[in-house]
């Protein structure tokens, strides 16, 4: 799985450079986020700009990251959701859980 991970000052930006975030690769995203938490990096933005498809495992990985960040008094925020990906959050009511921004600049400014 291709992830671009960058320190952006107030938060760490994870860009998911994959067309699909699904049961095949979402475990890797979870592992990467856990590694950041271990380093004490608890403010994370996940940029889903390139992601065309998310399944329930992909959502689960994001929920896992969200819970871990919150438990550490940090935050996990999302940005760059394509319309059909956005619909997945609505279908599962997760749009009420995550703070969702149009792009990473706006997400970063919110920290």
């Amino acid at each position: 799985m291709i992830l671009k991970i960058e320190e952006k000052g107030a938060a760490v930006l994870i860009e998911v450079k994959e067309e699909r975030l699904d049961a095949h690769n979402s475990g890797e995203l979870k592992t990467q986020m856990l590694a950041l938490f271990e380093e004490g990096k608890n403010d994370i933005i996940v940029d889903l700009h390139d992601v065309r498809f998310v399944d329930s495992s992909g959502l689960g990985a994001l929920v896992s990251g969200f819970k871990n960040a919150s438990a550490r008094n940090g935050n996990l925020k999302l940005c760059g959701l394509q319309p059909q990906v956005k619909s997945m959050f609505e279908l599962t009511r997760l749009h009420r859980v995550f703070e969702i921004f149009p792009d990473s600049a706006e997400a970063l400014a919110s920290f």
Partner: protein
Amino acid sequence: MNEKIEVDIKVPNQTRYLGLIGKIGEDIARTLKKYKGDREELAYHLNLVLTEAMANAIRHANEGDPEKEVHISITILDRILNIKVYDQGQGFDVNSLPAPNFRNLDEHGRGIYIIRTLMDRVTYQKHTHGHVLEMEKSLS
């Protein structure tokens, strides 16, 4: 005249084939004659229910054994879309799953809920060497 399409797929019991199955679902949605709804939405939904059902077969039924096989059949007949996903597992009771609690931030447990929401009819039954999840949706 009636549009009859049958696609039958067997792949190894590995998540790397989820994308292939999902794409075939999308290709079928984009080809359908006279579909009046939003075709790209149908493509996503087909991709999604195929991915969810196959991921369950791989992880829960076939327990990740890469030597096992997943068998999927997609049929369109009389404007009815029928999908069957065959696993080689012990089965579960699809009707006794708890309704998802949206306030509960569980990592798991959204797959069958998504399938039920997007399809008209869902059953899970015994079959030779395992079980079959069958999902149906009217396309008109």
